[in-house]
């Protein structure tokens, strides 16, 4: 048995392997499904909900939902695009995201998704929360103002670095990323060479002293919209 599974995304036939999620199978087929918390190499998390698709008419997170024979997936519909834009807007108004002077601007996946999904000014009122910044570590800083609680650092530290530097505390509106020390990041075994130090999609967990090494205008998403790398594989015939 090959374990090959055939299904459709927006009417296009896609083949995948049993055990893959919709997001994984779509990416290999050159179809981009917008996402934030999902990251190749990390276990699925399912918190941002930006990858919401319709599976046989029911909404599911593509990063969690396994593929199945014959399922009909809707991805690039007007309604889903609007809903994803709303979710991205929610993340913007929840935190303090000042794109014009953020070091991450141009490399930021949240910002890039805002552009891709056609976000102008958020429709929602800003929360303007007061959040803590942790600059105690010599090489890293954690600015919770920009954190979107995607758990990439939490997972990368455990799954890729074999450490346990980050975790979540509090619940609901008070949920925030915390570090494994009473003294802040400096009290942990976090290192600039950790995979976790590379993986933040926004400007929350950043390396010190390299913020503007690449000037604005020459950064990843200044060149092409987020998702382009996935879609290029489609133009090349995909990776099926």
């Amino acid at each position, binding site marked *: 048995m090959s374990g090959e599974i055939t299904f459709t995304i927006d009417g296009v036939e896609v083949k995948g392997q049993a055990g893959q999620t919709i997001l994984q199978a779509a990416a290999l087929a050159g179809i981009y499904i917008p996402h934030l918390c999902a990251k190749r190499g990390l276990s699925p998390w*399912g918190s941002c909900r930006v990858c919401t698709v319709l599976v046989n008419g029911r909404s599911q997170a593509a990063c*969690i939902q396994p593929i199945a024979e014959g399922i009909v997936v809707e991805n690039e519909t007007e309604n889903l695009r609007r809903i994803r834009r709303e*979710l991205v807007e929610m993340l913007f108004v929840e935190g303090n995201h000042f794109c014009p002077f953020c070091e991450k601007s141009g490399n930021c996946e949240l910002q890039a998704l805002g552009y891709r999904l056609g976000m102008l000014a958020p429709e929602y009122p800003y929360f303007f929360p007061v959040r803590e910044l942790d600059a105690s570590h010599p090489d890293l800083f954690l600015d919770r103002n920009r954190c*979107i*609680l995607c758990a990439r650092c939490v997972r990368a530290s455990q799954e890729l670095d074999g450490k346990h530097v980050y975790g979540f505390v509090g619940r*609901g*509106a008070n*949920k925030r990323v915390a570090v494994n020390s*009473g003294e802040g990041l400096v009290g942990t075994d976090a290192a600039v060479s950790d995979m976790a130090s590379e993986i933040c999609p926004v400007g929350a967990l950043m390396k010190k002293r390299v913020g503007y090494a690449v000037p604005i205008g020459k950064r990843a998403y200044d060149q092409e919209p987020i998702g382009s790398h996935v879609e290029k594989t489609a133009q090349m015939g995909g990776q099926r």
Partner: protein
Amino acid sequence: MKGMEENQKDALREICGRFANDRTRLMDILLEAHRRLGGVSGQAVELIAQTLRMPRVEVESTLSFYAFFTTKPRGKFVIRLCNDIIDQMHGAERVGHALCEELGIDFGQTTADGTFTLEHTPCIGMCDQPPAALINDRVITNLSGDGAREIISILRKTGSLDHLNLTLGSGNNSHPLVRSMVRNNLRERGQVIFTPLARGSALGKALAESPAEVIKNIKVSRLRGRGGAGFPTGMKWEFARAATGENKMIVCNADEGEPGTFKDRVILTEAADLAFEGMTIAGYAVGAAQGILYLRGEYAYLLPFLESILGERRAAGLLGRGILGKPGFDFDIRIQLGAGAYICGEETALLSSCEGKRGDPKNRPPFPAQSGYLGWPTVINNVETFCCVARILENGPGWFSSIGTSDSTGTKLYSVSGDCDRPGVYELPFGVKVADLLSMVGAHDTAAVQVGGASGQMIGPGDFGRTLRFDDLATGGSIMIFNKSRDVLRIAEAFMEFFCEESCGYCTPCRVGNRLLRDRLGQVASGKGRSEDLDYLKRLAETVKMTSRCGLGQTSPQPVLSTLRSFRSEYERRIKPPVADLLPTFDGAAAVAVAESLAQRRSVHFGK
């Protein structure tokens, strides 16, 4: 910072040791640490983490999640006044004022002498006897301002909850191991739940059959889960039975947190045997040797009593090894206490909590029947469902399915509260008309009924002819009644506030969207809305409902959606045309408040 005293360190180590230094028992360890030390400080977190050999951030993660846990020491008496909508309607605010005045502190504060801490808490399962409060584990019901003052004065004088002179409640509430003033208010006993059971009789019948036959009986009875979702119980068990796993687990969800629900409280007080019997039958049917009853922290007053029933069942050979002489059938039950988190009523969040973690729901798939508690195939059902199971085995599936309607067999317990003469628990066959229930409970001038709690729906008189059953008005049992003097938008706003408090914060739409909904609904309710806001609310509510990760967020927009549907005129009559050139949503005074405090003077324009 001052170091911890040696005796405190010893206490913490002793507590961890009592639970075999097992990190999956972190809930119990933290609960016991709070009982002994009043709170768990940063240093205590460090020590627990070392002792359990786990990252301190994970201890902090669990500790910071539950409302009953704290890092700062609380007072000797922690008073938690219930501020749900029903209690508010019955004068909780007056009680709150009296408590603040008497104690000289505000909510969220502790008296300087460290004796009293005052907090608010959402529904504690006493909506049939409001206003209610918890003082430590003790439940105080039917409070008044004067009553509250008197309680404080007695506690000040005697320093003990045992001197409160509370009149003991009905039934087992007067049992020496309960001794609570809670009243059952059991108004209507039906054939399934509130009929006496000869202990062990249903289990005996189950053991005379094969596990597969037991499951077949449940399927034939067409029993559906009583928590509200209505999943066929037999099918759930079949999945768990078929799943491979060295260990399997049976979990009974007694985290009854849906506002306005209190039927599990009465089951556990008067018919706990039935629930334990159902759990044991489930253990036999799916091949599990262990069970957990997850009891909400608010019902901790029932813990010693429930433990004693488990002890009696062990002594009678109904729990333990070789149950009822059946070789190889071993099953036992432990009780896991919660610590103040509505989300733990969500089945996968409850499992996280049982594992000692924060109450985050788990990703699905896999479903609990495949991989639940610690990855074991797990059956998780509501208290009432397990009771039905025992009765089905006792009287047969045909008997059971002859009660109720074709899509909803058996009886259902309703927790009725609000504007009616006879609030309490009613056991009725499925298929009762709302209007008939309203007249049975003595409701007059009813304007709205909230069916299914905050996550259910609010219906108006136009829907009172509908029936209570899975395929019409499905409900876990909460029925809150509101008469014509109540403001339905304010009620909906209170429910949204509840969801904002209780969201676990894992996913974006629930964490952020519910706050946005609450805020805009509040603006509209207070007459600061624009006509566009109704579309904004509807669209936002649909997004939260559609994209949220678990049942909490998928149902939390219901207060908005159902009032927009049934009470649209209530919204429309508050929408006024903009005054002058200002948007009605713009609160000028609030906008300049920070600037005013910096400038240390009032705004010329808005400071009036």
